[in-house]
C-alpha cells in the first residue's frame, strides 16, 4: 500500500512539473508578443516610472484587459500574459485538489480547497471590492 501511495505522489509531481512549465512558457510567449507590439509603437517615448499614477481601469480588471487584447493593444496583451502567469499556480492548486481526492486523502483535499478558496477570492473577489 505504501509503494502504491508513493507512486501516485511521484506521478502527481511529474504532472505538476509539466503544468507549471507549460503555464510559464505560455505566459512568457504572450508577454513577449505583447511587449514586441508595445515597444514597436512606444519605444521612443520617455520612461516615467518614478511617479505613481496607478494603472487605468482597462488594465486593472479582467474584462478591461480582455477588451484591450481584442483591440490588439500591446499592453493589454502583456497583461493577458501576466494573468496567465497568475493563473498557473492557481491551476496547480486546483489540480492538487483532484490528485489528493484520487489518493482518497481527505485531509489534504480539505487543505488544498482552503488554499484554492483564498486564491479565487483574491483574483475574483478583491477587484469587486476595490474597483
Amino acid at each position: 500500500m505504501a509503494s502504491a501511495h508513493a507512486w501516485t505522489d511521484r506521478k502527481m509531481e511529474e504532472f505538476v512539473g509539466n503544468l507549471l512549465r507549460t503555464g510559464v512558457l505560455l505566459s512568457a510567449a504572450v508577454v513577449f508578443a505583447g511587449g514586441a507590439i508595445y515597444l514597436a509603437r512606444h519605444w521612443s517615448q520617455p520612461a516615467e516610472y518614478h511617479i505613481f499614477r496607478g494603472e487605468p481601469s482597462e488594465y486593472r480588471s479582467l474584462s478591461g484587459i480582455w477588451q484591450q487584447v481584442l483591440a490588439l493593444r500591446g499592453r493589454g496583451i502583456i497583461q493577458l500574459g501576466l494573468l496567465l502567469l497568475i493563473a498557473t499556480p492557481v491551476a496547480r492548486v486546483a489540480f492538487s485538489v483532484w490528485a489528493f481526492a484520487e489518493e482518497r486523502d481527505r485531509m489534504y483535499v480539505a487543505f488544498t480547497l482552503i488554499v484554492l478558496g483564498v486564491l479565487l477570492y483574491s483574483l475574483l473577489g478583491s477587484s469587486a471590492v476595490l474597483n
Partner: protein
Amino acid sequence: MNVLEFTALVAVGSFVAGLLGSLTGLGGGVVLVPLLTLFFKVDIRYAIGASLVSVIATSSGAAAAYVKEGFSNIRIGMFLEIATTIGALAGAFLAAIIPLSALAVIFGLTLLYSAFLSRKPRPKSQRHLPPDPTATKLKLNGSFPDPEEGLRSYNVQRVPAGFGLMFGAGALSGLLGIGSGAVKVLAMDQAMKIPFKVSTTTSNFMIGVTAAASAGVYLARGYIDPGLAMPVMLGVLAGSTLGTRILIQAETKWLRLIFSVVIGVLGAEMLYKGLAGRF
C-alpha cells in the same frame, strides 16, 4: 531615458536578479525591489507589482525542475500554503494603508534579519531526529535524493512554530511584493528542521502560490504596470532558469554565504533610504 533603453536595462538587471534569486532560494523579488527603486528610481508601488509578478514566474519555472528532481515536498508545501496565502491576502490589503517610507523600512529590516539568521551556524547533530507526532499525523515526513547517501529521509519538527512563521512570511510577501523565500526557508530549515535543499526547493514551490494570493489585489489596485512588468518578468525568468541548472550541483555552504551577503547589503540600503524618507 526612453522606453526602449529603459526596457533593455531593466531586462538585464532583472536577469541578474533572477539568477541571484534562484541561486539563493530567495525568489527574484527580494533583489528586484531594491534594484528597481534604488537604481532605476521606479516608484516602490510599481516595483512591488512588477516584482510580485516576476516572483510567480521564478517560482513556477524553478519548481517545475525541482519537482521532477524529487527535492521538494508537495505535502509540506500544500499544508504551509494555508498559512502563506491567508497571510499574503492580509499583507496585500495592509500595503495600501502603510506609508511608503515605512514599507521601505520594513523591507530593509526583513532583509537584515534574514541575513543575520542565515549566518547562524546550524548544529550538525540534527540529522536523524525522532518523528514528531503532529508532523506524522499531517504526513509531512519525507525523503530526498542525497548525492552521498542515496535516498535520505527526514522527520519534520515543530509544526505549529513553522506554520506561524509561514503566516508571517505570507504577510511580508503580500506587503512587499516579494516571495519572502528567506523567511520561508528559515521557517522550514531552522524551525522545522527540514534539510536545506528540501527547504529551498519547497519554498520555491510555495512562493508562486503565495504571490498569486496577493497578485489579484495588486492588479485591482493598479500596481501592475505592463510596460515595467514585461522586461522584469522575462529577464527574471531567463535568469532564474539558468540559476536552477547551477543549484542542483552547487554547495550549500556557498549558497548560504551569497544569500546572506546580498540580502544584508540591500537591507542596509533600503533601511537607510527608508529612514531618510526618500520613498
